[in-house]
């Protein structure tokens, strides 16, 4: 596998309601920012463009096509889209570079979830015969997963609150975060239940926004003369959609992806984990084999703001930017999709 360089990354603020901003108006500022960072003029300066979004979130058919209006695709560009988090758009672009079909790529993810009722909208991604007609919300699966862990003694409610307290504290240093502040574990445990055993703060907020990234071959990054971090490997694994056949107390697919991509082959200085629910950070840390030497979710993670369809790419961008700034030498980024961590994508990155 050839190394792929991340040369630019930008994310918008996580807003509870982006109001009068359409998809183009959400995407365009982050595109302009990554062009500036990479020192390129526009989309015509990269070989491939790929985005991630889901029209169900805002209830606008072909919003992902409208999003292309942000690009300037004249003359026509090579472009693709995944109905997934943009981390999977990165995966597609990474494969293009691996196969020699592109030397550089622009990626972006966006989501305007506020117009709909996201936990209910997400119920419609489930099995259409057995689950979707019951309108089982996305929080329910996480809650049942948390209860299994609590009752098996794998975690305590205080462990969950500790994850939230650290997220809120770390988010104080993240200008894009939606939820931040100093909270004690005791304070958090005094909050009422939401979908038990989850309290509201155990669940990520609903956020509107976008992120973008420019990747390229290492040769190209040197030609552009920009600092970069390197993707050493990516792996994506999926578990069955038959929820009863899964062991929800661990993340088998993350374990497999981590093994395949060699997470354990060296020390991990920083990690950004896409854990939409507090207990899932604990599952993921274990699945990735991370110990306390790793700084986890220094950005606050998605409990501080969750750009559905962009948060996965943001995790990778966060790690890359921290490596570029010299906060560590080796990092791991994780993205997820589906109920109770059904799909997981693990990326290992290194500083230049």
């Amino acid at each position, binding site marked *: 596998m050839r190394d792929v360089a991340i040369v630019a990354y930008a994310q918008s603020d996580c807003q509870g309601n982006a109001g009068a901003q359409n998809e183009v108006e959400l995407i*365009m500022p982050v595109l302009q920012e990554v062009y500036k960072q990479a020192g390129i003029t526009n989309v015509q300066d990269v070989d491939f463009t790929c985005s991630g979004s889901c029209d169900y979130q805002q209830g606008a058919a072909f919003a992902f096509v409208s999003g292309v209006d942000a690009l300037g695709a004249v003359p026509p560009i090579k472009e693709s889209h995944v109905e997934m988090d943009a981390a999977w758009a990165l995966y597609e672009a990474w494969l293009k570079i691996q196969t020699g079909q592109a030397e550089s790529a622009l990626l972006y993810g966006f989501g305007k979830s506020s117009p709909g*009722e996201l936990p209910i909208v997400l119920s*419609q991604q489930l099995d*259409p015969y057995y689950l979707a007609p019951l309108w089982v919300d996305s929080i*329910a699966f996480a809650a049942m997963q948390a209860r299994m862990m609590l009752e098996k003694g794998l975690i305590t409610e205080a462990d969950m609150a500790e994850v939230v307290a650290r997220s809120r504290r770390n988010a104080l240093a993240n200008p894009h975060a939606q939820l931040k502040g100093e909270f004690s574990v005791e304070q958090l445990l005094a909050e009422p239940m939401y979908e038990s055993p989850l309290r509201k703060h155990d669940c990520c907020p609903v956020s509107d926004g976008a992120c973008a990234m420019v990747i390229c071959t290492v040769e190209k990054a040197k030609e552009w003369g920009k600092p970069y971090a390197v993707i050493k490997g990516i792996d994506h694994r999926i578990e069955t959609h038959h929820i009863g056949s899964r062991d929800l107390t661990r993340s088998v697919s993350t374990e497999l992806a981590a093994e395949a991509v060699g997470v354990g082959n060296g020390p991990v200085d920083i990690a950004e984990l896409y854990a939409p629910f507090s207990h899932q950070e604990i599952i993921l840390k274990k699945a990735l084999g991370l110990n306390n030497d790793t700084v986890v979710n220094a950005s606050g993670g998605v409990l501080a703001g969750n750009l559905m369809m962009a948060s996965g790419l943001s995790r990778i961008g966060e790690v890359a930017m921290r490596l570029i700034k010299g906060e560590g030498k080796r990092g791991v980024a994780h993205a997820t999709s589906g109920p109770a961590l059904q799909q997981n994508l693990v990326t290992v990155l290194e500083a230049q």
Partner: protein
Amino acid sequence: MSAAAELLSQEFTLGYTYTRTTGPVVGEFLTALRDRKMRGIKGSDGRVLMPPMEYDPVDAAALSEFVDVADCGEVVSWTWVSQPRKAHPSDSAFAWALIKLDGADTAMLHWVDAGDESAMKTGMRVKARWANETKGFITDINGFVPEAVALVADYVESDAELEPISGIECPSYMTYNFTAGKATARYLAQLRNGKLVGQRCPNCANVYIPPRGSCAACGVPTEEEVELSNKATVESYTIVYIPIPNNPIKPPYVIANLVLDGANLSFLHLLSECDNNNVRIGMRVEAVWKPKEEWGYAMENIKYFKPIDEPDMPVEQIGKQKSGE
């Protein structure tokens, strides 16, 4: 330049009126539900999967050996929903639960009507509460209840010979509150004042109406607003002869791509007060507005466009004129 955008929002419901074929495995399960029976399927390792899978989740082998399982079992995990959402199957507080039915080896998801959270416990026994009327759908189970709850069956039975289930109707309706983007909101606000206002690209100088806040060709934000004339040129057109359900306009009528004077890209509108046989590309037309008191935030403020007595525009010039030059 653009002033602050007015916030224009509207609630709407999006419907996906799906019908689905079930295939033999899901069909068998749903047919059994209609008869108020539970049927699982044997996986490659001999375990009974519930609800049945078409392919084994481990080795992907096609599965076909059905197994009857009980309509009662135990709760493996659960969550309490104290404030149900509108789409949820229960109006009052309820539990989502993973339930392992007797005779099955995997838990299935459904809901439990337990009345109060204190009645819920992992490992508790529950039984299916069958719907009075069944149709071969997952909601034929009207939730589960704690096993000790006495149920009064008031089933509607049919004597008719029923075909096995092979398809289901599962429409999905979701309500959204749409908020127009900044460029669209500015455009609609001006339209309400009887003005057609587009946006000019700072790079290529093309003028877009309706504007979307960007030049799709150059990929740059558009800010500068340009008030456009009521006059336009026909870029293309079609004559509609087919009646469209719920459309108040009686065919035949003309729909045209129109380029407003000063704009560079066309939009769709109606052409009327014209001889349909004489509509042509390059024809000059102008907007016919509704009375002012009927104006709203919509393109319907313009009833239609009608021909005017001006010479046709040569095809190669349509949309090519740069108003800023």
